């Protein structure tokens, strides 16, 4: 049965791009996969917690960054509340990378690209690289001596690989735009894609015991305790 027949779309409706997108979306990510209420039993492990911990830290990063961006450098450098939110933003980034690295190690050692999950692995790796760029432009946007030092040190390295004319770390306006718009949008979009891929393929199971065949479909446990 085709997607169109399943969703009851007529021939004319099937030619509409909205119908095609809806049918593809429902077909690849049915609601029970998108928002499951049960997870495999092997997900009951602390190592499966760090993916969602990374996302939680990312939410704090984005919200605190919005507050900093609305008030500006004079506020985050001179007022006690501004310094507080500056600290929240910094430490949320520290937690974001901390949790992401532990998540990365966990997925690497369980070979999380198994079972057709290659795109999930690659999307996570690309997210990690783009997030490093977002953090780098953040350190360049601090508007203090530290950011000037990082810019003066970084420009030679970037010039040596030929991208200094397009990505000028001494140009505050350019770095700030990268930091508050382009890279955060890229990171959030990649995280959404990554999570949707996880939902579609399911959480990667652990390796089978040595000498044993791959385990059959495991018993499910209610979701909520642990997540990818």
């Amino acid at each position, binding site marked *: 049965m085709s997607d169109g027949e399943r969703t009851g779309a007529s021939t004319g409706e099937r030619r509409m791009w909205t119908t095609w997108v809806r049918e593809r979306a429902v077909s690849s990510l049915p609601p029970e996969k998108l928002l499951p209420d049960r997870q495999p039993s092997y997900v*009951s*492990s*602390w*190592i499966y*917690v*760090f993916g969602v911990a990374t996302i939680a830290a990312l939410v704090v990063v984005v919200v605190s960054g919005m507050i900093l961006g609305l008030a500006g450098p004079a506020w985050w450098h001179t007022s006690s509340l501004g310094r507080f939110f500056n600290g929240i933003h910094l430490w949320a980034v*520290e937690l974001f990378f*901390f949790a992401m*690295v*532990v998540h990365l*190690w*966990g997925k690497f050692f369980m070979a999380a690209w198994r079972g057709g999950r290659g795109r999930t692995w690659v999307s996570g790796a690309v997210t990690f690289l783009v997030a490093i760029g977002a953090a780098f432009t953040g350190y360049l946007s601090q508007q203090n001596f530290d950011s000037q030092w990082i810019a003066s040190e970084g420009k030679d390295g970037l010039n040596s690989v030929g991208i200094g004319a397009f990505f000028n770390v001494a140009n505050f306006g350019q770095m700030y735009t990268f930091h508050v718009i382009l890279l955060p949008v890229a990171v959030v979009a990649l995280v959404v894609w990554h999570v949707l891929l996880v939902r579609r393929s399911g959480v990667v199971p652990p390796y089978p015991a040595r000498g044993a065949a791959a385990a059959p479909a495991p018993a499910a*446990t*209610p979701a909520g*305790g*642990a997540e990818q």
Partner: protein
Amino acid sequence: MPHPVIAALFDLSHPAHYLHWHFFQMSVANVMVILLMIAVFLAAILIPFPKRERGS
């Protein structure tokens, strides 16, 4: 001078301490973060996850 209760646990008003061994050079703070990540990674594997009681 910050209030003692909210002051940093470590005095940060000085240049960072560095570990240096041949080509390897890294601040003590970064080495501590890496060691802490390894410790948390091992703990996440070894510490059992609390089980939800049936019926709740």
